[in-house]
């Protein structure tokens, strides 16, 4: 039961952001055309005419990190306003028109990027692109729509005030990022959202919606000749350069400590972290393989075996690499009954230290490689997913040939690489732990 307005965020599973790909055959199936439009916009296109659909994904570098101080939640607020009226249509007229065209449009704010997606049937293509043009260039910010969306956001924030996962995310962010812009919640707080005016949304949009920081991925029943003028029509009127605030690199604590938020719930939710690697770090791929063995595999990881399979301590236990533009993190989490929270945390600490000290076995490396190489194709089996990958590869600046090279990069990882990656990723095994609930936990250690 979701009490929030129906507003589908998309993508964002890309938190751990490693773009996968790579069965030789499916790589061949994803043939990317790259071109620059006359307005200077770079487009990646995969033509696929089996289904009469077009999926356009796009993103602007910027994201919630560009929210003004004291105005956390600005980017996300803007995502709510994008279909609340544009051009000469108020919210109702705009939404009825979307319905009549059977188009789907959604926006989503991440820490480093502002994402959008348009899906349309081929037969209503031109009208759907025109609707998108209006949303992006002629957003209305009518007072009543603004107030309605603000109230929905505030209600949502209020609704989550005592939600254990929300408190966990907040506490964790504060512990990890402190005063860095990443420490501000993407969705904002009741105070910060209350302080946002329509002019703040306009200002955010004017600063971040530009051509130079825009990436685009298109998949579907459309060729370059048709697409190029549509792209220029939608995005060509934007300023060339954005005015982005400079975001400093974040310093992630490398220490063992515990932060506990008490809440009277039957299950304790726990998240842990330590510094990780940036996406462009040469050791990122080895670290990715290493994490897969530790806690990345949805089953058969060391944490899964020790915490869930052998002891039944948790339904879900995981770890992942979280590379942001200005911070690299290693993150994990689990949820367990209060009286065994200490045991679960001890196992996590032990397993991290064991991997830091002893590394992995040849067999573990081989099966991790087999999984990571084999699973590439599953990220490219719908137009929706392919368009998302095209955007993510560009945001992370991995290069046009990344899809072809990626599996070879996984294959090339050696035991020596993992040893080095373990040293860099896991260090001396220190992790800091954030918990919400009523557990008995030792601080530190």
């Amino acid at each position: 039961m979701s009490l929030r307005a129906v507003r589908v965020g998309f993508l964002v599973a890309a938190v751990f952001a490693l773009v996968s790909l790579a069965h030789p055959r499916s790589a061949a199936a994803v043939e990317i055309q790259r071109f620059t439009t006359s307005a200077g916009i770079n487009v990646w296109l995969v033509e696929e005419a089996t289904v009469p659909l077009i999926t356009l994904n796009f993103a602007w570098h910027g994201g919630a990190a560009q929210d003004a101080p004291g105005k956390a939640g600005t980017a996300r607020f803007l995502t709510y306003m994008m279909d609340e009226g544009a051009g000469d249509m108020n919210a109702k007229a705009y939404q009825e028109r979307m319905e009549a065209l059977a188009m789907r449009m959604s926006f989503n704010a991440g820490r480093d990027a502002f994402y959008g997606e348009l899906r349309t049937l081929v037969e209503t293509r031109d009208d759907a692109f025109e609707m998108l043009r209006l949303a992006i260039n002629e957003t209305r910010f009518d007072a009543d729509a603004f107030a309605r969306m603000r109230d929905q956001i505030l209600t949502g924030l209020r609704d989550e005030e005592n939600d254990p996962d929300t408190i966990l995310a907040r506490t964790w962010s504060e512990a990890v990022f402190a005063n860095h812009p990443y420490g501000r919640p993407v969705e904002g707080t009741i105070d910060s959202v209350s302080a946002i005016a329509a002019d703040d949304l306009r200002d955010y949009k004017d600063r971040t919606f530009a051509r130079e920081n825009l990436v685009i991925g298109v998949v579907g029943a459309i060729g370059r000749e048709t697409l190029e003028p549509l792209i220029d029509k939608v995005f060509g009127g934007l300023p060339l350069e954005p005015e982005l605030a400079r975001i400093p690199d974040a310093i992630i604590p490398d220490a063992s400590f515990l932060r506990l938020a008490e809440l009277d719930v039957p299950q304790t939710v726990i998240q842990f972290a330590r510094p990780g690697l940036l996406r462009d770090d040469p050791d990122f791929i080895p670290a990715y393989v290493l994490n897969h063995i530790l806690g990345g595999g949805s089953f058969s990881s060391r944490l899964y075996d020790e915490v869930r399979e052998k002891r039944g301590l948790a339904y879900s236990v995981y770890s992942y690499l979280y590379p942001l533009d200005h911070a690299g993190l290693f993150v994990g989490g689990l949820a367990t009954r209060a009286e065994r929270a200490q045991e679960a945390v001890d196992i996590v600490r032990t397993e991290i230290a064991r991997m830091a000290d002893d590394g992995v076995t040849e067999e573990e490396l081989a099966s991790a490689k087999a999984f990571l190489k084999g699973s590439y194709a599953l990220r490219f089996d719908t137009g929706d997913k392919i368009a998302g990958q095209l955007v993510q590869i560009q945001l992370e600046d991995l290069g046009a040939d990344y899809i072809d090279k990626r599996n070879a990069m996984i294959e090339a990882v050696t035991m020596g690489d993992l040893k080095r990656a373990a040293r860099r990723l896991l260090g001396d095994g220190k992790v800091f732990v954030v918990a919400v609930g009523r557990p008995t936990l030792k601080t530190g250690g």
Partner: protein
Amino acid sequence: MMRHTNVARLAALSLLCLAMLLPARAFAFVKGVETFDLANGMQVVVIPDHRAPVVTHMVWYRVGAADEPTGQAGIAHFLEHLMFKGTRANPNGTFSKYVASVGGEENAFTSSDYTAYYQRVAKEHLADMMRLEADRMENLVLTREVVDPERDVIIEERKSRIDNSPDAQMSEALSAVLWFEHPYGRPVIGWLNEMEQLTLEDAISYYDRYYTPNNAILIVAGDVTTDEVRTLAEQTYGKLARRAEPPARVRPEEPVHRTARMVRLASPLVTQASLVRSYVVPSYTTARKRGVGSDSAALDLFAELAFGGSTSALYQKLVVDEKIAVSLGGYYRGTALDDGEMMIYATPAPGVSLETLEATIDRELAAFLDADIDAATLERVKRSVLASAIYAQDSQQRLARVFGSTLTTGGTVEDVQAWPDHIRAVTAEEVLRAGRKYLDTNRSATGYLVPQAQAPRS
């Protein structure tokens, strides 16, 4: 979320948007769907999608939480977890290790009406998936060493999904009072006190009763042909004996409902009041059985027009115009073996009581049912609903789920294919008539979720 997702009955709501329609060529996939039976009674459905060399392989069992013995709530879902433990020939998670070794994705889910297992792999591994899935249909081996910790896992899963979440607790309580007699009133994951008592023997006896080819449906979606699937299916599932003859799925019928029910949950975890209401209404299957098959398509459109999204009548009235509610929505859950539900939820504006909100919803529902629906509005909404069918074709996994959930709830392949025609045929008068006929508050339960004044954080 990790493995073994407990989809619960709600998940079937995606079906609404799923059957198919619009220009003929859009239906290439769905038109290409073929079905046949193996000699042992197992049904097979093939959904071709040749865009990428991958397949989605699913086995659906016509059994779910509503088929559980009394006192064993949760056994369907518990068995679903235990199915990953191994067989004589493939012990200790061999199956899952194999899936991982080829980079596949796997999971399983349980609802009130069905239990399903799936893998998504490169097409060359399909034969092995079928061999391993067929093996665990008859050769599951369970020991205390694996059953005991797994019971702890499902209890933790319950805590994650329900006990830590007042929204979920409300949902659970609302179902429990909505259904007087029908087991849809039981949570799929089970009641904690009964889950704690579930045994290895309970799981095996449930397995032996229901996990048999004549109670299963194989669905393969992806880069395959019907002939390929037929050959492989005969070599694997076709070799299985009928292990059991599961009883007819006759669940207790609901008696006449004469009372609007009310559930109130006050919790310190709740910081924002909200309201939810559910009505017992016919599903696609029960409407057809009662000879009023077109009522379900009418209910689909009724839900969209009345409260389905931001262009709906109630959203426009309560959220946009009167500002009684901050948000409001609802949907029709029509994919069920027995009756379905119509669900409405809303959050009041600051200063508005839940009583006022509820009265306003009732007033506006009545007003909607009294007024006419203009032709342009009906066409617009039909168009958007029907387009979902085309968008669904982007995902073989989604299509496989549509067919699986339909076939395990009394529907057929033809029913999925005919859905768009049914939607197209609905008239404004039929929408209103269905609404008037079924939205009877005496067949509903309403839930109030309210904050409890008490600081939970110390």
